């Protein structure tokens, strides 16, 4: 069945280098450095990535960083809490725009 999201397409990510090899190389090097151990551990970075994957609702990233989080030693309790962080920020971002709604309503109301 045709679908916009195909799990096998994740393996074709490297194809994005075909028409812009320099940009792909730069992106790949940057990506590797971002996820290397630094002030944060690789495990902590994988949990952040998992949360962001849910915020941007990328199925490829959710697959990849669920596995990565497990392979870095995280457990489902920690991973579920990470997802809730994304949910809280997304929900909070919507809710805080309610202030704009209130300001607008106040501006056109008695």
């Amino acid at each position, binding site marked *: 069945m045709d679908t916009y999201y195909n799990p096998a397409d994740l393996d074709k990510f490297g194809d994005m280098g075909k028409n812009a090899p320099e940009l792909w190389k730069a992106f790949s090097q940057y990506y590797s450095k971002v996820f290397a151990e630094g002030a944060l*551990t*690789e*495990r902590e970075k994988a949990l952040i990535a998992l949360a962001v994957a849910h915020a941007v609702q990328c199925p490829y990233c959710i697959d990849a960083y669920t*596995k990565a989080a*497990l*392979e*870095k*030693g995280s*457990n*489902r*309790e920690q991973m579920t809490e990470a997802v809730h962080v994304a949910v809280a920020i997304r929900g909070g971002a919507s809710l805080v725009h309610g202030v704009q709604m209130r300001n607008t309503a106040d501006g056109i109301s008695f």
Partner: protein
Amino acid sequence: MTIPCAGIVPFEASLQKSGLAPFHARGIGTLQVNLGKKCNQSCKHCHVEAGPHRTETMDGETMDRVLSTLADSAIPVVDITGGAPELHPRYRQFAAACRGMGKTVITRCNLTVLLENGCEDLPKFFRARSLVVAASLPYFRKEETDAMRGAGTFEKSVEALKRLNAVGYGVEPEAELNLVYNPGGAFLPPPQAGLEALFREELLKKHGIRFNRLYTIANMPLARFLGYLNRSRNYQKYMQTLAGGFNSCAAENAMCRDMVSVGYDGTLYDCDFNQMLDLAVNHGAPSRIEHWDAQKLARREIVTGDHCYGCTAGAGSSCGGQTSEN
């Protein structure tokens, strides 16, 4: 047995590309002895398919041959495994005899066996004979541990670890207690050092448990775990992950290059995993304990297959944990 996996480079070709073929042993630092397949647990990842119903066990004649081979050899380390080796009726005698020869003896322990009837005094036995304990603990939480090893396993394991700590294991420098981690599914183990720090912090904080080292071991695509991979449709992906993660440094340090594994029936293997595939030592080296030839075995060509990717993926995996930094 393993199942041919489409789309991956054969292990032999990866060895050739890395300049490691033919793949030879470098010596015999360890004799791993499998006393049998009987176990009080039936873990989902078990490559031995061990369990309470298994009856395969090393007979007295074979055990005596193993002991006389060890007595005549300079092999410094004996690694006792199973099943749960403690359930063998001559386990204590065997371990004590190996120690009597001055060998370092590693005893692989599933922890819960220490709570079985007749096994309660084993921590004291281990300590009295100065055995190195390699204890399986898949994770520092109940959920992950019980999912792999059965309901109630985590609590029993914690109790067993406390009993080991009480006799000095993991606490006193000469009583070495190492934990062994296996992933709880079709994914690779985490980097060993980071996970060891997590285990140390969590086990001490929540249970007051101390240990020396944590070894991370990949799940091998064999036997019970292979069944899980097929049922869950993860086989192809898992093999691709293993093969894609081939690390020539890990291959160079693979445990089979420094050990021989002897099965409960006296057959010799390059490792415990080949043992479960009935892939005996070959290429001109003897495949029976009664035909032991240290010279030939120490330089033998190792029998390999695609399952060997399980030991060479990522940071590498062995009975002694990670085998490379990357």
